[in-house]
């Protein structure tokens, strides 16, 4: 059993969001995710990549296939170098936005995955890690 290598994609432009979506889709298909699961993971990836670009002034997405016993999953870690989030509870609320968006990026993508972790410190950027298990 070989472990797929970790891959890191830059997020510095709108077309990088598309690249993150495509890579996520490719790995989700490799893992034989159902179409609905693929779609959820790709959509969550798109939301978080856009967050990293728009609120985080760019960053990166690390994609890896993970294993927990016999279970396989796809894990994405988004890191940005933005201003960070002072109030995480508020940021996770549906409809809360500091940009011009709908405020569904964080709260919505959390609903689309199995595991969701967010770490942020004002002035030190934000890291969001999501995992969807097969």
């Amino acid at each position, binding site marked *: 059993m070989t472990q797929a290598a970790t891959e890191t994609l830059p997020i510095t432009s709108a077309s990088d969001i*598309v690249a993150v979506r495509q890579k996520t889709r490719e790995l989700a298909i490799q893992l034989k995710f159902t179409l609905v699961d693929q779609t*959820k993971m*790709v959509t969550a990836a798109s*939301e978080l990549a*856009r967050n990293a670009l728009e609120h985080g002034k760019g960053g990166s997405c690390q994609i890896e296939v993970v294993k927990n016993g016999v279970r396989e999953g796809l894990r994405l870690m988004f890191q940005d170098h933005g201003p960070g989030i002072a109030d995480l509870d508020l940021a996770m609320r549906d409809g809360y936005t500091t940009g011009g968006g*709908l405020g569904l990026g964080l709260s*919505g993508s959390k609903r*689309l995955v199995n595991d969701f972790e967010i770490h942020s410190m004002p002035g030190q950027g934000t890291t969001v890690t999501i995992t969807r298990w097969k």
Partner: protein
Amino acid sequence: MERIPILRMGNYLLVTIQVDMHDRLAMTLQDDLTQQISKTGAIGVLIDISSLEIVDSFIGRTLANIAAMARVLDAETVVVGMQPAVAITLVELGMSLPGVRTALNVESGMELLQTSRGSFARGMQDDSSGN
């Protein structure tokens, strides 16, 4: 510059989105469509998204904006062909596309556009239904 083609058929504008749209392309489509409605006097816009493998909050918001702008310009918009997996994901994400009319396929979408026009009362009913 990359653009999504807009076809004109009589009083209607037809758009088929066949690429994985980046955000700027979606914004360009919104601008182009609004301009075309104004220029051609189109009364209906049909947007086929059957090739779209995801609709995230940005694309969803763009579709809602197009529908709202078209309405202000006296044109109806129907979004057709959403894949079931996309519908499931979109609702779970928290977007149910309020204000956007949908149909299962191009045929029923065109039918919807043709029948909704002329019945001025429909808009009135919609307005009063919230009371």
